[in-house]
C-alpha cells in the first residue's frame, strides 16, 4: 500500500476499493511503528487526520470528489496549521499553536487530504541535515547513521520510509531537492512565486519557495496542480497561466536539448556521484535527447552571495520573535531589553543565532555596500548565466549534491562545510528557477539524486523529462529493505 503512487491510491479511493479512513489508519500505524527510529515527525495528528478522512469518504461516496481527496499527507512544520503546534523546528515556537492556516494548508484541506502530522526540519529551515531541529535529528531511512538532508529532512525521510505518500516542503537554498536526493525520493521547487508563501514561516523571503515531495515525478505533477495558484495574501505571488502539469508527462523527449555545464562536474564532486549522474544523462540520450555544452561561469560565487543575502533577510524576518506576542519568553526578565535579548538567546539554536548575527553585520552601517549590495549584484550575474545557458538548451542536468548523504554529526561542528554542500542547489534559488531532484542510483548504498533545472515556468517540461526518465528506470520505486521487512538497518 505504501509503495503505491498517488494515481494508484486515487483509483483505489475513487473505485471504493479502500476508504480514506482505512488508508489513513494504515499510514498512522506505520508512523506509530517506524517513526520512533526515524524521528521524521514533530507532531502526529491522528484525530484531525481521521476526522478529515471521514469527510473525504463522504465526498467519495457522493461521487463528487477531487482526484486527490482522501489521500493522506503531512506538512513540513514550517506551514502554519490552525489549531496545531507549528514549531518550525525551534524551541522559540515549541508552544506556538498556529491561529490560522497557511495558504498551502488551506488549498490541500479544501481537497480533503487528511493531515497525518507535521514533519521535522532544521530550525527555521536553516540547515542541510535536519540536525539543527530542537526535536533532535531525523535519520535517513536508507542508513540510520546518515542524515536525511535538510531542511525538509522530515518530509523526505517520511516519504522514503512509506509513512506518508506525500509531504510538503520548502526550498530556500536547496531544502526540497537536497533531502529528496539524500532520501531517494522526488521533489520539485517551482519558479519563485508559484506557490504562496502566506503562512509559511519566513526565513529568506526573496528565496523561500514551497513545493511537493513524493515518490515520483508523476506524483509531483498531481500535487503541483493543487498547489500552484495566485494568492492575494502573498505580495510576491505570481499570476501564472493555469497549467495541467500531468498533461505533458508522456510527451516524447526526442530532440530535447540537455545542457551539461562543465562547472557541475569540477572539483569537489564525488567521482562516484559523477558516474551516477552521467549514466542518468546517457539514459535520456538513448531516448533521443541531445547534449549541449553550456557554461555557468559565476556559479562558484553563488554560495558566498547566498550567505550574505539569506542571513540578511533572516535577520529582518526573525526580528518578530521577541517574546512579546507569541512564542518563547525567558523567565524573570529584568527589563524590556533583557526580555528581548534573553528570550532570543534562549529560544533560538546556535545556527539560527549565527545567521541572524551574520545578517545583522552584513546590513550594518559601513558594510552594506561591500556585502549586501555586492551580493545582490552577484545574484544578477548568476541569474544571467542561466538566462544565457537556456538560449541553447531546454533543461540543465547535473548533481543535486556533491556527495551522497553524509553521516550524522559529521558536519555539525563546521557550519561552513555544511554550507558548501549546497553549491549546486543555491544558484537555482538565487535565480528563482524551477528545479527538481529525482532518484538516479546509489553510492555506498545511499541514494543519489539527478538535478533538473529549467527556465522560468518550465515545471511541466521538467516533470515531463523526469517522468520519461522514470519510465525506463526504477530507482524511485526502491525502498529500504529494513522498512519492508521490519528489520533494523
Amino acid at each position: 500500500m505504501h509503495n503505491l503512487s498517488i494515481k494508484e491510491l486515487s483509483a483505489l479511493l475513487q473505485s471504493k476499493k479502500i476508504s480514506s479512513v482505512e488508508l489513513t489508519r494504515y499510514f498512522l500505524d506505520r508512523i506509530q511503528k517506524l517513526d520512533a527510529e526515524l524521528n521524521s515527525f514533530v507532531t502526529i495528528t491522528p484525530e484531525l487526520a481521521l476526522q478529515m478522512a471521514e469527510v473525504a469518504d463522504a465526498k467519495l461516496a457522493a461521487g463528487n470528489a477531487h482526484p486527490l481527496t482522501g489521500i493522506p499527507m503531512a506538512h513540513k512544520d514550517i506551514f502554519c496549521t490552525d489549531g496545531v503546534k507549528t514549531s518550525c523546528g525551534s524551541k522559540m515556537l515549541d508552544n506556538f499553536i498556529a491561529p490560522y492556516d497557511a495558504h498551502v494548508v488551506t488549498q490541500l484541506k479544501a481537497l480533503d487530504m487528511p493531515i497525518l502530522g507535521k514533519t521535522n526540519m532544521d530550525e527555521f529551515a536553516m540547515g542541510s541535515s535536519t540536525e539543527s531541529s530542537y526535536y533532535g535529528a531525523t535519520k535517513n531511512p536508507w542508513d540510520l547513521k546518515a542524515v536525511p538532508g535538510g531542511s525538509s529532512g522530515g518530509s523526505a525521510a517520511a516519504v522514503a520510509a512509506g509513512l506518508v505518500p506525500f509531504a510538503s516542503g520548502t526550498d530556500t537554498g536547496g531544502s526540497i531537492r537536497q533531502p529528496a536526493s539524500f532520501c531517494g525520493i522526488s521533489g520539485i521547487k517551482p519558479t519563485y512565486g508559484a506557490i504562496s508563501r502566506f503562512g509559511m514561516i519566513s526565513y529568506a523571503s526573496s528565496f523561500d519557495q514551497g513545493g511537493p515531495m513524493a515518490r515520483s515525478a508523476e506524483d509531483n505533477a498531481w500535487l503541483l496542480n493543487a498547489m500552484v495558484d495566485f494568492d492575494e495574501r502573498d505580495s510576491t505571488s505570481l499570476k501564472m497561466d493555469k497549467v495541467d502539469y500531468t498533461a505533458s508527462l508522456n510527451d516524447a523527449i526526442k530532440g530535447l536539448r540537455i545542457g551539461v555545464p562543465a562547472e557541475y562536474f569540477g572539483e569537489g564532486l564525488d567521482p562516484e556521484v559523477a558516474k551516477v549522474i552521467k549514466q542518468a544523462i546517457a539514459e535520456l540520450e538513448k531516448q533521443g535527447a541531445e547534449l549541449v555544452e553550456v557554461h555557468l561561469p559565476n556559479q562558484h560565487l553563488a554560495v558566498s552571495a547566498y550567505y550574505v543575502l539569506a542571513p540578511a533577510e533572516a535577520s529582518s524576518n526573525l526580528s518578530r520573535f521577541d517574546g512579546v506576542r507569541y512564542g518563547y519568553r525567558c523567565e524573570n526578565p529584568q527589563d524590556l531589553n533583557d526580555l528581548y535579548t534573553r528570550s532570543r538567546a534562549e529560544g533560538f539554536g546556535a545556527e539560527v543565532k549565527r545567521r541572524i548575527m551574520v545578517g545583522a553585520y552584513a546590513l550594518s552601517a559601513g558594510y552594506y555596500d561591500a556585502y549586501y549590495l555586492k551580493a545582490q549584484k552577484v545574484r544578477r550575474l548568476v541569474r544571467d548565466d542561466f538566462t544565457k545557458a537556456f538560449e541553447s538548451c531546454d533543461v540543465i542536468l547535473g548533481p543535486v549534491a556533491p556527495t551522497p548523504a553524509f553521516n550524522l554529526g559529521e558536519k555539525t561542528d563546521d557550519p561552513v562545510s555544511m554550507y558548501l554542500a549546497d553549491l549546486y542547489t543555491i544558484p537555482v534559488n538565487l535565480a528563482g528557477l524551477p528545479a527538481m531532484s529525482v532518484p538516479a542510483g546509489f553510492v555506498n548504498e545511499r541514494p543519489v539524486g539527478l538535478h533538473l533545472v529549467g527556465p522560468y515556468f518550465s515545471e511541466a517540461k521538467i516533470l515531463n523529462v523526469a517522468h520519461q526518465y522514470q519510465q525506463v528506470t526504477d530507482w524511485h520505486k526502491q525502498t529500504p529493505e529494513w522498512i519492508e521487512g521490519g528489520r533494523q538497518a
Partner: protein
Amino acid sequence: MSLQVSEVKKIAQLAAIAVEPAEFEVVGKKLSNILDVFAQLEKADTSGIEPMAHPLDQTQRLRDDLVTEDNQREKFQVIAPSTEAGLYLVPQVIE
C-alpha cells in the same frame, strides 16, 4: 578575517541576542569563518551590474487602501506569554 570582541558585542546588540561574555571568543571565531566565505565576493567584477532584489525583477504589487483583516485579538492573544485586558504585558519600561 577575525572579529574583535568589541565587534562581536556590537553584532549581538544589533541582532538583539544576549551573548555571555564567556562565549564572545567562540562566537566570534565561528562568525569570522562565515565572513571568510563572503570574501570571495570581492573578486567578482560587478562593474555596471544592477543589484537584483527579485528573481523576475518584479516590483511590489499595489492594492487599494482598504481594511482586509478582521479583528481576531482574542484568538491571537490566547498564545501570548502574558496579556491583560487585551494588552500584551512586558516588564515596566518607564520608572
